[in-house]
């Protein structure tokens, strides 16, 4: 599809969403409350393997979700395909209301549901110049060199999120974006990870990323350095930092988890453990990668400081958790990071290898999981272009290694420096639909990082 088709789709849905909301809320009886939300996309997906097209297609999807709160505070949600061509919006609104009333019937009262009582509104529309479908393949592959073994996914188009409630709240977010998330491979099975994302495709900029990846591959042609499991000095490139940061979304920064004593950060909040003073983390909606409104109709502050100079400031707290535990909501319905930012430090990125001296340059980490959650211990693997460095000079690729390390050491006692420069790592998840969000993070130099296999 082209740009005008994208905008047409978004505009069409915006209008229909407003109409169905008006009709639905108008049918509610006294004491009943509801929220309507819309998630939609029109996306071109082109999958590439060995520098050729593996699969290519187009997906249009739109889902309308109703959260219904009965007069006795029984709650239910129903999500249905939102099909503009379905015609009669009166029927749609009436049928949906009948279904949610039936589904709430006999369900125990939910003491922690938040009624939509205050209205707020926002409208954010990011327009872009997305490649027309017919130009995607030639743009992705036309500039490749013979033998470039590029593997990855291009996804481009419009993503939409809307929310309205019976108190009069109205929020709208639509964004024209694309990404190509790819890796470039050598015949020896080693690869460099790269990508290109934005709102306006510039062919030259994309090909620059490929040229750089091609250059970075050269070091991976050298003999493999096999290391024994031990502690090593490491530099985590921003993409590796981002992977480690993701663990904070697995229950760690959740106010609900903290209240239930399920989080490794319980010890930090109590002051029993602390991170390095160099480590500051916040949610920054100013990056423009994620809607600020939540499923419960709240509008998050533009910035939510979480950890400042190593000290715990606040956790991510939904309105529901706030009600249950008497905490203060900061507009995080999922209580996981959506648009995090780690503050940069003093190390010049260009000096990373020199500062590392002898140790491991880790470009990417893979498949992280808690190995002992309550104690903040994480295991995972090195992946892609990880290199052994001696006296500031790259020696050669390493055989992939498993680490088992705590977030308290990585972001605390072993943190030597953060790079001054930070990089945007866009969210590329496409489960069910394209996700919003992304992270801005620096590289990290660690004195010791524990490898076990």
């Amino acid at each position: 599809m082209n740009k005008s088709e994208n905008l047409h789709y978004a505009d069409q849905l915006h209008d229909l969403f407003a109409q169905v909301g008006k009709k639905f809320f108008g049918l509610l009886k006294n004491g009943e409350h509801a929220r309507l939300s819309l998630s939609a996309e029109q996306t071109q997906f082109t999958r590439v393997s060995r520098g050729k097209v593996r699969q290519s297609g187009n997906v249009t999807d739109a889902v309308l979700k109703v959260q219904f709160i009965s007069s006795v505070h029984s709650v239910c949600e129903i999500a249905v395909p939102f099909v503009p061509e379905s015609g009669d919006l009166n029927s749609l609104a009436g049928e949906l209301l009948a279904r949610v009333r039936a589904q709430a019937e006999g369900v125990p009262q939910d003491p922690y549901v938040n009624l939509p009582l205050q209205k707020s509104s926002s409208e954010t529309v990011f327009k872009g110049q997305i490649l027309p479908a017919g130009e995607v393949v030639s743009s992705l592959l036309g500039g490749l060199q013979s033998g470039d073994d590029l593997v990855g996914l291009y996804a481009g188009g419009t993503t939409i999120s809307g929310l309205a409630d019976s108190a009069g709240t109205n929020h709208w977010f639509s964004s024209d974006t694309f990404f190509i998330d790819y890796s470039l491979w050598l015949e020896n099975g080693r690869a460099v990870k790269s990508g290109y994302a934005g709102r306006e495709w510039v062919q030259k900029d994309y090909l620059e990323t490929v040229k750089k990846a091609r250059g970075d591959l050269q070091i991976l042609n050298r003999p493999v350095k096999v290391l024994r499991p031990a502690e090593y000095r490491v530099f985590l490139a921003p993409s590796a930092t981002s992977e480690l940061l993701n663990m904070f979304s697995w229950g760690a920064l959740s106010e609900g988890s903290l209240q239930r004593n399920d989080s490794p950060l319980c010890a930090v909040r109590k002051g029993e453990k602390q991170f390095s003073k160099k480590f500051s983390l916040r949610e920054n909606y100013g990056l423009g990668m994620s809607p600020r409104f939540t499923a419960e109709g709240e509008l998050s502050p533009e910035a939510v400081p979480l950890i400042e100079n190593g000290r715990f400031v606040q956790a991510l707290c939904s309105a529901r958790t706030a009600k249950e535990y008497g905490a203060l909501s900061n507009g995080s319905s999922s209580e996981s990071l959506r648009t995090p930012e780690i503050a940069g430090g003093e190390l010049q990125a260009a000096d990373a290898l020199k500062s590392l001296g002898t140790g491991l340059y880790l470009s990417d980490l893979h498949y992280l999981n808690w190995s002992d959650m309550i104690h903040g211990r994480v295991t995972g693997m090195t992946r892609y272009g990880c290199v052994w460095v001696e006296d500031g000079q790259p020696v050669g690729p390493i055989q992939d290694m498993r680490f088992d390390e705590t977030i308290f050491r990585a972001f605390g006692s072993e943190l030597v420096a953060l790079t001054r420069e930070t990089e945007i790592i866009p969210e590329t998840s496409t489960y069910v639909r394209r996700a919003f969000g992304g992270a801005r993070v620096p590289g990290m130099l660690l004195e010791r990082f524990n490898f076990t296999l």
Partner: protein
Amino acid sequence: MEQLLKKVLSQLSIASGEWVGIRFHREQTQYREVRDSHPEENRTVDSAGVMIEWLADGQFGYAATPVVTEKSLMETALLAKTQAQSAAGRALFKFDTRCRPPSQGRYSSSVRTPLAGLSEADKFSLLLALCRRMKTSDCVTTTSAGLQHVLSDTVYVSSNGAHFEQNLSLVTVSMEASGQKNGVVQKRSNHGLSAYSYQGGAEFLFVDVLNAQADKVAAQLHELLDAPECPSLTTSLVLSPDQMMLQIHESIGHPLELDRILGDERNYAGSSFVKLEDFGHLRYGSELLNVTFDPTVRHEFASYAFDDSGAPARREFLIEKGILRRGLGSLESQIRSGVAGVANQRASSWNRPPIDRMANINVEAGQTSFNEMIAGIEHGVYMESNRSWSIDDYRNKFQFGCEYARLIENGKLGQVVRNPNYRGVTSGFWKQLVAVGDAASMGVFGTPYCGKGEPNQSIRVGHASPVCAFAGVEVFGGAV
């Protein structure tokens, strides 16, 4: 629906050598969950739409829409054709209609008692009762119980005469209790994350069965709160079926997927240490290891009659007496690789194209009873229920954690230990398989959440296994 899809097919101008397939998929998923004494989730998700594939110039193009009208489907079909045509000049492989057989038939899950008879009040009453049952002391800080029920209908027609319909009913029951005592924090669940997953109906909600699970969860949580850390040592490891499920999934299922071996997944899920030339002779495990792809097991989570390319699904041996025989590869992957595969080209929904997936991947029963297995081990550790999983992108170096473990001392199960973990390397691990449990030790489990693919797809898989014993495995506990 069949008539509409066939009508659209009949109106398309499909050139000689081209092919069109239309897959309608409708799914309703009910999520009901309670935590402690209150409802936490009461959500129903309806999804419905059509995926159209068009094969032109040897390339499949696809387009998907939720608008299921004749006009919309005609437009969507032409969009799919355009996708194929614009990619054909730079196609990875030139496919033909052998990848889309004209299968016909019908499959339905075996359901003894439909869930439709249960009211919302009944469902919440059941879940609240399970939570109350798990709350056996003040040490139990949080309890939760959930029910997921899916009704999934697929209608598939194609220009070369395929027409099949599949109707699935799927049930998952989860329960978990968390506890604290003297600074120790532990969790216990019924077999690990969403592992109690089956095709069927309300017969998987028998109160006596679920109550017994809740009682076990609560009792073992208390054991864990009083237990010492799992020791660090290299020893014999016995895995229960609900942990074998994860071990099979990560270190047999994924590495045998032919699309990984062919390189398509290298940018996301990863590759494999297995090479195409390994099929037919690689010693994958000890002679005790027999592994099947089996979509015919009655109540296992990922049973079906046809995959989403139309290939008829049959039971096949992937590994026989430890030797690698067959890959997890669709007709597309089989033609590309020349390696024998299975009917596993599956899509997570109407809005995703089918790719190579697992379905039911099972370890076949051996001859050793559970008691004999334990009796034959002087020192070791027995582990149950996965709680942590991580493996490299070639599916070799893994580290897994379990919820519950007991030491094995002088042929008997002994001390309960907490935070049990183990690590190893796939290429050697299965050769350390020294005992395979008998049919009485078999357990059948599944999960709704296996992630893979670009664009990403989460799909249902099933795994059945007996208890198994491995020699010389590195095990260890938590906090250093």
